[in-house]
C-alpha cells in the first residue's frame, strides 16, 4: 500500500486506523433522474392510497395486464365516471389533461398490481390532482420550504427537476401570464440576482411581491377543503448561515446556482458520519471519481453552513491527501488554499505536514514568488519540524544544484511528500545528468549514476539513459560505463524541455 500515514505530532487524522463509526445509518440507493421525476408525479395520489400490497397479491405484470383488459373492477368504472361528471368539473383544467392523467393513474395502479386493492372511492379525481400539483409547483418555485419533507433523500436531483417542471407548468397552465419561462429565468438570474434571492428565500413572508400576490389569489380561488390540507409555507427567517436538515449520508455534488435549501444540506453530525463512511469506502473501493464527488458535496455543505472548525480541517486534509495520492492537483490545490486559511485562523490540524507539501508543490511548479511566500508563512519553530525542514532542505539542495543531497532527501520523505517529489524527480534527474555530462570526463560507472540519482537498480538507470540516447552506455569486463564525454547536449536539451513545461493545472 502506498498510503503513508503522516507522522506529524499532535492530533492524527488516522483516517485508516480509526474504528468504524457505529452510528452510521444505511444509505438509500440513489434513483436516476427518470425515477425521481416519476416519484414526484405520483406523490399526490399515492399518499392517500392504501398501504403497499403484500408481495403475494402481485402476479407477473404481463399476466395481469392481459387479464385486466377484459375485467375492469366496478370501482374503477365508477371512478372514471365521476371524473367526467359535470358537477366535478374544475375550471382551468382541460378535458385532454384530465384524460391523460386518468390513463396515467390507471396504468400506474395496474403496473403496481394494486388495481383491486385500491380504494377507488376515496382516490382524488384527476382534475383535483392536476390543480393541486399546479399550486404546489407554483409554491415550490416561490418557496423552497413548501416542498420540504417530500422524499428528502433525492433532494438534489428532485429539486432540480421539480423546479424545472414547475416553470414549464406555469407557462402551460397560464398561471404566470405576465412572463414567459425564459423571461423569468433570464430576468431573475441575470439582471437582478439579489431580488431573485429575496423572492426565493423570503417571498412568502413579505407577501408584497407581485409573484406572491398572484399565488395568494390562486389559493383563495381554490376550494377551502383543499387549502386546509396544504402545508403552509413557513421558512425560518434567514439571518446568518443556513442550518442543514438532510440526514442522508451520501450526496452527489452539484455546483450551486441558487441559494442552498436547508433540506438539501446535511448538518455537521451527519457530515461526520459521511466522512467516516467515505473513509471506509475509499479504503475498500478506491474509486476516486466517487470519492472526489462526495468530498466536494461535503465541502459545499460545510461552506454553506459556515462551519469552520477542526472537523472542517480534517475534511480538507483528507481530501487533499487522497487527491495527492491520485495526482489530482486541481482538487489538491483547492484544499491547500482552504487549509492555509484555516490554519491561519488558528484552527488545529496538521499544519506542519501541509506546509511541507506546499513547499514541495511550489518547487514542482517552479513558482519562486509563491515559494518565497510559503517560507514567509513559517514560524521559527515550524522550520525545525522534520517535514518542513525536509522540504526546505529539498528546496535549498535544488537551488544550489546539489543533486547529491537532493536525491538523498528523495529517499527519505516524511508523510506523503514522495507523491509530490515524484512529480519533479524526472526533471531533476535530467538536470543532474546534464550537469554530470559536462563535468565528468571521460566516463562514469553506471553504478555511480544509479546511486547518485537514487534509481532503484542499474537496469532502471540504464533504461533512463537509453531513452535519450542508446549510444551512451558501454559494457566493460565487469561493469557498464556511462560515456559522459559523448553525451554532448542530449541531456541539456532534455532538461531545458522538461523545465519549460511545468504543468500548472489548478495553480493558485
Amino acid at each position: 500500500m502506498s498510503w503513508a500515514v503522516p507522522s506529524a505530532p499532535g492530533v492524527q487524522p488516522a483516517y485508516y486506523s480509526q474504528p468504524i463509526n457505529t452510528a452510521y445509518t444505511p444509505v438509500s440507493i440513489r434513483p436516476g433522474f427518470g425515477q425521481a421525476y416519476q416519484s414526484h408525479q405520483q406523490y399526490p395520489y399515492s399518499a392517500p392510497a392504501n398501504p403497499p400490497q403484500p408481495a403475494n397479491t402481485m402476479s407477473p405484470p404481463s399476466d395481469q395486464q392481459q387479464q385486466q383488459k377484459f375485467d375492469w373492477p366496478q370501482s374503477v368504472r365508477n371512478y372514471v365516471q365521476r371524473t367526467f361528471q359535470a358537477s366535478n368539473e374544475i375550471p382551468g383544467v382541460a378535458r385532454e389533461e384530465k384524460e391523460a392523467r386518468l390513463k396515467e393513474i390507471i396504468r400506474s395502479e395496474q403496473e403496481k398490481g394494486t388495481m383491486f386493492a385500491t380504494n377507488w372511492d376515496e382516490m382524488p379525481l384527476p382534475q383535483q390532482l392536476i390543480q393541486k400539483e399546479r399550486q404546489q409547483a407554483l409554491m415550490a418555485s416561490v418557496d423552497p420550504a413548501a416542498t420540504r419533507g417530500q422524499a428528502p433523500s433525492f433532494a438534489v436531483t428532485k429539486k432540480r427537476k421539480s423546479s424545472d417542471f414547475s416553470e414549464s407548468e406555469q407557462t402551460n397552465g397560464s398561471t404566470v401570464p405576465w412572463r414567459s419561462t425564459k423571461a423569468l429565468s433570464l430576468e431573475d438570474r441575470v439582471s437582478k440576482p439579489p431580488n431573485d434571492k429575496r423572492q426565493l428565500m423570503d417571498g412568502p413572508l413579505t407577501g408584497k411581491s407581485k409573484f406572491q400576490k398572484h399565488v395568494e389569489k390562486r389559493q383563495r380561488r381554490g376550494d377551502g377543503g383543499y387549502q386546509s390540507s396544504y402545508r403552509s409555507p413557513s421558512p425560518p427567517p434567514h439571518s446568518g448561515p443556513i442550518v442543514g436538515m438532510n440526514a442522508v449520508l451520501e450526496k452527489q455534488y452539484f455546483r450551486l446556482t441558487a441559494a442552498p435549501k436547508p433540506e438539501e444540506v446535511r448538518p455537521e453530525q451527519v457530515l461526520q458520519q459521511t466522512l467516516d463512511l467515505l473513509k471506509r469506502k475509499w479504503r475498500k473501493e478506491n474509486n476516486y471519481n466517487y470519492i472526489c464527488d462526495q468530498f466536494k458535496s461535503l465541502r459545499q455543505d460545510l461552506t454553506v453552513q459556515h462551519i469552520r472548525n477542526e472537523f472542517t480541517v480534517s475534511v480538507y486534509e483528507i481530501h487533499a491527501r487522497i487527491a495527492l495520492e491520485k495526482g489530482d492537483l486541481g482538487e489538491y490545490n483547492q484544499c491547500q488554499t482552504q487549509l492555509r486559511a484555516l490554519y491561519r485562523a488558528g484552527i488545529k490540524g496538521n499544519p506542519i505536514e501541509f506546509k511541507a507539501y506546499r513547499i514541495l508543490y511550489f518547487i514542482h511548479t517552479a513558482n519562486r514568488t509563491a515559494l518565497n511566500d510559503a517560507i514567509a508563512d513559517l514560524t521559527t519553530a515550524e522550520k525545525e519540524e522534520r517535514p518542513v525542514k525536509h522540504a526546505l532542505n529539498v528546496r535549498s539542495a535544488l537551488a544550489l544544484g546539489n543533486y547529491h543531497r537532493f536525491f538523498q532527501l528523495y529517499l527519505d520523505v516524511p508523510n506523503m511528500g514522495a507523491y509530490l517529489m515524484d512529480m519533479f524527480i524526472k526533471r531533476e534527474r535530467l538536470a543532474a545528468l546534464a550537469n554530470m555530462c559536462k563535468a565528468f570526463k571521460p566516463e562514469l560507472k553506471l553504478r555511480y549514476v544509479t546511486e547518485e540519482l537514487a534509481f532503484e537498480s542499474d537496469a532502471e538507470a540504464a533504461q533512463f539513459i537509453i531513452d535519450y540516447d542508446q549510444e551512451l552506455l558501454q559494457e566493460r569486463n565487469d561493469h557498464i560505463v556511462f560515456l559522459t564525454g559523448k553525451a554532448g547536449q542530449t541531456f541539456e536539451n532534455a532538461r531545458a524541455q522538461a523545465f519549460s513545461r511545468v504543468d500548472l493545472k489548478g495553480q493558485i
Partner: protein
Amino acid sequence: MDGLIHQFRAAYAATNGEQLAETLNPDVETHSAKLQAIWGRGDPRSMTSDLNFLFYQDQGRVRIRLSKEETNGWYAIYTAYWKAIGEILAVEGLRSDAKSSWARVYDAWKEVTLLTIRGYTNHDFENWTIPCLYVTGKYLRLYAMRADAERTLSNEDTAIDDLQDDFDPQAEEHKSLEDCARHLNRIFQTCASDRAPLEESRKWGVYYAVNLLFKTYFKLHSESLSKNILRVISAGRSDIPPIDKFPKSQQVTFKYYEGVLAFLEENYVEAERHLEMAWLMCHRTSQRNLELILTYLIPCRLLTTHTLPSAQLLEPFPRLQKLFTPLARAIKKADLRAFDIALRDGEDEFIKRRVYLTLERGRDIVLRNLLRKVFIAGGFEEAKEGAATVRRTRIPITEFTAAVQMSGGEAIDTDEVECLMANMIYKNLMKGYIAHERGFVVLSKSGAFPGTGV
C-alpha cells in the same frame, strides 16, 4: 465652499493642473482647517445652493472658459467631494455630530473618483487637469487600505458568498483594495486609450496611473497583473510619450517597479539595468527610496557581475549594512560557514524583501572562491627548462574535500564535493573536468576560474 471654488477658478484661469488637483486634496493632517471650512455646518441644502450659485449664476464674474458640460462635471465632483469630506472629518473625530468608518470614507471617495473619471469620458475635461485623477486615485488607495485594516481588526463575520463551494480566504482580506485596483485600472485605461493628438492627450497621465497600480498590485501580491500593465505599455510605446519626458519622480518609481518585476522573474540583467536607472535618478534625500532600490540592486550585482557592495556605499543605510555586510565579508573570505550563518540571521528580512532565494545563490561564489584558494595553494608544476611556470592543474579531490570541510565546519563526503564541483563546472564558474575513477580534478591551464585572474 466659496474659497474652494475661488481656488478652482484661479487654477482654471491659469490652466494649472497641480493647483486644480489641490482643490480636491482630502488630507486632514495638512488641511484640517480648510476641510472644516468646506464642510461648514454640514447642511446639504446650503452646499447645493452655494454650488448652484457659484457654478451657474456667478460664473459671469470671472472669465474662464468652462463649457456647460464641464460645469456639470465639476459640479458633481464637488458635491461628492463635500460628502466625502463629511465622512473623513467624522472618522477622524473632527465632527461632534457623527461617527463614520473607513469603509464609508472609501465608498464616498470612490464616488469622487468615479465622477472624476467620468469627467474625462463624458464631460470633455482637458488633459491639463489630469493631476486631479492622480489625487483621487492616490487617496482612493490609501482609504482602501485603511478600510481593509479596519475590517481585519473588527473581524466581523462578513457576508460569505454562499454559492461558492469553498470559502474564498483571499477575497476578504483585501476586499477594498481589490476593488480599488479595478478603479485605478480604469484611470489607467482612461489615460492610455485617449486618441487625441499627443499635446492634448491624456496619455500624459499614464505613468501616474501605472505607478499607482504597481503599488496596489504589489500590495495584493498580484505581480502577474503588473506584468500585464507593462505589456500594455510596451505594446503602445509608439503612442505613449517616452518615459524620460515625464517628471523624474514618476520615472524613478516606474523604473524601480520595472526592475523589481524583472528581479522576481530572475531576469537579473534586465533588473539591474532598470534599477540602476532608478538609482541614478533618485533624489539623494529620498533615503527610503534609495534603500529600497539598493535592496534589489545589490543582489542583482552579486549574481550578474559578482560585485560586492563597498562599505562606503552601505554607510548611509544602517539597515542594509547590517544585512549585507556579513554576507559580503563571508563571500570575500570564502567562508562557507560564515555565509550560512549570515544568511540565516537575515532570513526573515530577506524573505520579507523577497531577496532570500537570490542571495542564497551567493553561496556559489563563496565556494568558487574557496576552490580557487585550493588551486592557488597547489602552487606550480616544476618548470621545465626554458618554459614559463604553470600552476598545478591536476588536483586530488581529497584536497577540495578537506577545504570544504574546514570552511563549512561539518563533515561532507567526497560524492557531495564532486557534485558541488560538477556544479561549478556546469555553471562556468570553474573550467576543467572531474576524473571520477582516478579521484582527480583536472583544471584548465588558462583561466581555471574565469574572471578572477587565474
